[in-house]
C-alpha cells in the first residue's frame, strides 16, 4: 500500500521510503520517516498534489512522489 492511494481524511503509518537522491532526502528531511504517522488532509482541485498533516504541520506533495512511500493503514480520523 502506498501513500498516494490513501483517501482524504485517513491516516497511515509509514513503513518505508523508496526512491533516491534529492527527492528521497527531502522526504526524509521533512519528517516522512519510517514509523511516522501521517494524515491525508485533502487533494487539490485538480486531484494532485495532496496535503499531508504530520509532526504538527502541513506538507504538500505530489501523488507521484507519494507513491514512493510505503504505508500501512490505520483507522480513519475525524476532524
Amino acid at each position, binding site marked *: 500500500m502506498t501513500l498516494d492511494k490513501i483517501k482524504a481524511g485517513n491516516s497511515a503509518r509509514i513503513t518505508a521510503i523508496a526512491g533516491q537522491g534529492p527527492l528521497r532526502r*527531502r522526504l526524509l528531511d521533512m519528517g516522512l*520517516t519510517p514509523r511516522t504517522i501521517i494524515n491525508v488532509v485533502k487533494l*487539490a482541485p485538480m486531484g494532485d498534489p495532496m496535503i499531508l498533516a504530520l509532526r504538527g504541520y502541513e506538507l504538500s506533495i505530489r501523488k507521484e512522489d507519494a507513491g514512493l512511500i510505503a504505508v500501512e493503514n490505520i483507522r480513519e480520523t475525524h476532524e
Partner: protein
Amino acid sequence: MTKTFALIGNQNSGKTTLFNRLTGSSQHVGNFPGVTVEKKSGLIRRHKEIELVDLPGIYSLSPYSSEEQVTLDFLIKEDVQCIVNIVDATNIERNLYLTLQILELGIPTVLALNMMDEVISCGNSIDVCKLEEALGIPVVPISASKNSGIDDLVDKMTETADSRKKPAKYDFCTGEVHRAIHSVAHIIEQAAVSKGIPVRFAASKIVEGDLKIFDDLGLTPAEIDIIGHITDEMEGLLGIDRESALADMRYVYIEKVCAESVARLCSTAQQQQTLKIDRWLTHRIFALPIFVGIMTLVFYLTFGLAGSFLSDAFSLLIEKIVLLTGDLMRAADVNMTIQSLVTDGILSGVGSVLSFLPTILILFFFLSVLEDTGYMARVAFVMDKLLRRIGLSGRSFVPMLIGFGCSVPAIMATRTLTSSRDRKMTIILIPFMSCSAKVPIYVLFTAAFFASGRALVMTALYFTGMLVAVLVGLVLKRFMYKGEPTPFIMELPAYRFPSPKSILLDIYGKAKDFVQRAFTIILLASVVIWLLQSFDFSFNRVDGGSTGMLAIIGSLIAPVFAPLGFGDWMSSTALITGLTAKEAVVSTFAVLTSSADNNMLIDSVRNIFTPLQAVSFMVFTLLYMPCVAALAAVRRELHSLAGASLIMLAQTTVAWIVAFMVYQTGMLLGF
C-alpha cells in the same frame, strides 16, 4: 573589528521578521558568490560591530540544493562567531531537525524559539530549561512579530560569541549509527582538521551517504574503502539504508526531547484558523474561483481605481518636472541640443519608465501580502498540476500571472522560487505574458482595422502569448532543462497576519532596486536612442524623421521583417524604440508619420499596413524581447548580462518565427 553572526532556520519560521528586528533598515542585499542565491546582511542594532548574515531558509544541510550548499560553505569557510538558529515553536519537531545538524558543526549557537506567543496563548508550554539541557545550547523564547524577547536574544548571542561556548552536545545517535559515526570520525580526523571541516559533522554526513564531503576531505582510497565497510556493516545490522537511519535517529531524539519539554495540549489558534480558512481556499470546487476573484481584485486595484490614480498623478508630476527643467534651461540659455538631450532624451526616457513605479509598488505590495500571509503556498498547491506539464511547479504561477501587468515585478517575484532551474525557466517565459505596456499598440491597431471585433482580437493575442509560453516551456523542458526538476515538496505554513514593517521594508527594497536600474541602464538606452534620433550620420542635427541615424538603422534592419509583412523602415524604427518602453512604439509611429492626433495616426497606420500585416505586427510585438527595464531585471536575477541578452535574442527569434507563420499562412489563405 567586525564579528560575523549567521541567522539560519526553516522557511516560514519568521526568520525575515527576526532579521528585520535585529538589523532595522541597515540591510544590504547581494548574492552568494557563484550562485543565484540571495545574501542579505545587516548590522545589529546597538551592536554595530556585529554583522548578521541571513542565510537561505532551509530544512536540512544536505548536499542537494544550492541553498543548502551555500549555507554549509558559508558556515564552514567563513569565521562565524555565533549561529542564531530560529525555530518555529508551533512546529518544533521538524524545525529541530536542522538544529541537530547545526550543532554538529561545533560553532557557538543560540536557539531563538520563535512564535512562543502563539504557543502560550492556547495553553501549551515549552520547558525551556529542559530544552537547553537536551540540546546543549542556550534557548531564548521570542516572538519576532510581537517584538518580544529580542533584547534577551541579542544579549545571549553576544554572550555566547564572547565566551566561545560551543554546543555542549552533538551526539544524538545511539547503537549502530553511533558506533559507525565514531569509527568514521577517527579515520577522517586528521584530514578534517587540516581542511578546517568540523570532524563530527563530516563523519555524520559520510555515514548519511553524503558523497560531496568525501571530495572536500581528500581522503585516500584506502580510507574511503574502510569507511565503506563501516557504513555497509551498519546498514546490514540495522536492516535499513544509511539515509533513513540518520534521519530516523535524529527524529527519534527529537521526539524524545519534545516528549519531555513540550506540552502540546491543542493546536494553536493560528493552526485552527488555518484549517477553517483552508476549507475554502483549497476547497475542491471553490478554490479556483476564489483565486480568480482575488487576482482580479488585485489587478483591478493596481490598474483600475487607486492604481491608475496614483499612476496618473505620478506621470503628471514627472511631466511638471520636465516642463520646469525645460523652462530653466531656456532661461539659462542652454545650448538647444543639450536642452533636447535633457528633455527629449533623458527625462522623457527615464520618466516614462519611472511612471511605472506606482504600478510596480502596488503590485509588490499585494505580492508581499499574499506571500507573507501564506496564501501563495496555497496558490502553488492548487496550480501545480497545470504547471507540471511544462516542467515547472505551482510556485511559478503567480510570477507569470503578474507578467500580465508588468514583466519587471514578475521577474523580481521569481526570487521566491527556490530552484534556480525553475527560476530561469520562469524568467524566460514571463515576457510571453503580454504586459500592460503593449496594450496601447493593440489599441491602435485594433482601432484601425478591427474596431468591431476589438475584444476578440485582444483576447486572441493574450491567448497566443500563453500558448507560445507553453510551447516554449515544453521545448525548454525537453532540450535544455532535462533532468530532475526540483521536487515539489512544500510546506503549507499557518496563515498569519503580515507585519506591516516587513512589507514596507520589502517594497522599499524593491523600489530602490527598480529606481537604481531606471537610472542606469534605461538612462543609457534613452540617451542612445535620442542620439540616434536627433542626428544623422554626419552628426548634423535633424529633428526625428527619416534622415536621423535611427531611421537609417531602421531601414537597414527593415528587410529582416519583410517576410513578416512589415518590412518598411517606420515599423522597424518603431520596434527599436520599443526597446526602451513598449508604449514608445505608438509614439514613434506618431512622430514618423507626423500625425498630430489619434485619428490622423489611425489613418496613417491604415496606409502603411494591411489588416493581415497589422495582425503579424501585433503578434511580433506581443512576443519579442521586452523593454530594457525587463532586461535589467533579468540581468539582476541571473547575474549575467550575457545570459539576459541571450534570452532576449531567443525571445525575439521566437517572435519572428511565430509572426512569420502567421503572415505566410494568412497570405496563403488569401487574407
